């Protein structure tokens, strides 16, 4: 290992030796911080042999990813960190509001069992989200996963439908993003007849009297795809007020809040609200809904403080 060929003199030799010793010490340290105990390695071996879950190592042996499949062959991931013997900390669970998150477990078998139980309980939830993703054009979240328990469905280029799904797989907090009388009236009338025995997609189709879901024009879809690819760069939709796509303090992308079809400028709800309230002399508006003119096209516009 040591490069001792032709040490020209004693100084070069000793310098080489010094370098080698130093690099070896570093190596020893990094190996040490990577080590896990034999017990857990045996456990992992068992799991891999019996094949009831996939176990993967990350940057070090202490970063472990576990993947299980449900009855519909959907893959579900969980990340944990080895903190010491019988100390396994769950860092990320790709499930909505999982109680396992940030919990410590003694062995991997327990983790897999609890995880699997969670996944089984969420079967209906997965089905509803998957069905929406397949049947509708989803505007948000941009990269859909089971961790996000909501979907924003394209109705027209000014109006999206927001639907949240409970862990039991029931739709909740259904409302429109964007103000459209036509869609709004149908939604108000239709919500009363929501049939929880039918799936969410079928219910939405009944409410809005659709035979199939509306789709954005190919141009809009291209724009949307570009947004997905370059989430926060120049091509993504930016807010007409802060000129940014993502806000540092609040989540959510700019929305088509102006109803003038020839305007087409998107705003963050919080930016537009702040402007409309400032125009009205900084008095908080009644019922949290501010009125005023669109900053771009000056047409009348309303904006609620909260996302309904």
């Amino acid at each position, binding site marked *: 290992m040591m490069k001792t060929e032709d040490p020209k003199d004693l100084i070069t030799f000793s310098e080489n030796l010094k370098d080698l010793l130093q690099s070896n010490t570093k190596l020893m340290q990094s190996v040490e911080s990577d080590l896990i105990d034999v017990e857990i390695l045996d456990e992992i071996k068992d799991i891999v042999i019996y094949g009831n879950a996939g176990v993967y190592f990350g940057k070090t042996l202490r970063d472990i990813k576990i993947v299980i499949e449900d009855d519909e062959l959907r893959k579900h991931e969980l990340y944990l960190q080895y903190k010491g013997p019988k100390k396994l900390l769950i860092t990320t669970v790709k499930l909505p509001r999982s109680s396992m998150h940030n919990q410590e477990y003694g062995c991997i078998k327990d983790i897999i069992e609890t995880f699997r139980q969670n996944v089984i309980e969420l079967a209906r939830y997965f089905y509803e989200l998957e069905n929406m993703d397949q049947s509708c054009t989803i505007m948000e979240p941009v990269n859909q996963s089971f961790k996000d328990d909501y979907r924003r469905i394209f109705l027209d280029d000014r109006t999206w439908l927001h639907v949240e799904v409970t862990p039991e797989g029931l739709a909740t907090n259904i409302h429109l993003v964007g103000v459209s009388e036509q869609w709004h009236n149908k939604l108000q009338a239709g919500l009363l007849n929501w049939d929880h025995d039918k799936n969410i997609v079928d219910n939405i189709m009944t409410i809005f009297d659709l035979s199939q879901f509306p789709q954005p024009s190919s141009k809009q879809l291209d724009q949307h795809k570009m947004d997905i690819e370059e989430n926060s760069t120049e091509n993504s939709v930016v807010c*007409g*007020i*802060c*000129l*940014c796509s993502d*806000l*540092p303090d609040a989540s959510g992308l700019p929305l088509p809040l102006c109803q003038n079809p020839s305007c087409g*400028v998107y705003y963050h709800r919080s*930016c537009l609200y*702040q*402007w409309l309230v*400032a125009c009205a002399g900084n008095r908080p508006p009644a019922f949290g809904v501010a009125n005023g003119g669109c*900053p*771009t096209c*000056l047409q009348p516009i309303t904006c609620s403080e909260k996302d309904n």
Partner: protein
Amino acid sequence: MAAMSPSERRLQKELMSLMKEPPPGVTVDGDQASQNLTLWTVHMEGVPGTLYEGEKFVLQFKFTNKYPFDSPEVTFIGNNIPIHPHVYSNGHICLSILTDDWSPALSVQSVCLSIVSMLSSCKEKKRPPDNSFYVKTCNKNPKKTKWWYHDDSV
């Protein structure tokens, strides 16, 4: 580095796009602006074929941390203040979008374009009729002036 405030983020974006694609005859002093994002100097050339052809002007933009909810303070500075019915000899500009009609959808670029077009459409070089009185009595900040917008044609 400390996280940028929303107004700094927006100013940074505006500066980048103005430096990359400036409107004809408009240049921003990028070095100065990037050192202090709240104070910009913009150089402007009189448009060929107008009364201001060949003249050079300097505009100063001051921003508060409420920008873009608060309009920028825009004045002509330097030796050459354009002689125009809406520009006072102290550099103050009577332009509604700088106060009452400001909107956060406007930008440094759109303000520059408005001023270029205001100059270009001028038919006779003269100071505003109330120039000497205004310059003697006004506040240093043009935004404190209650403007009476003379007309919409220029």
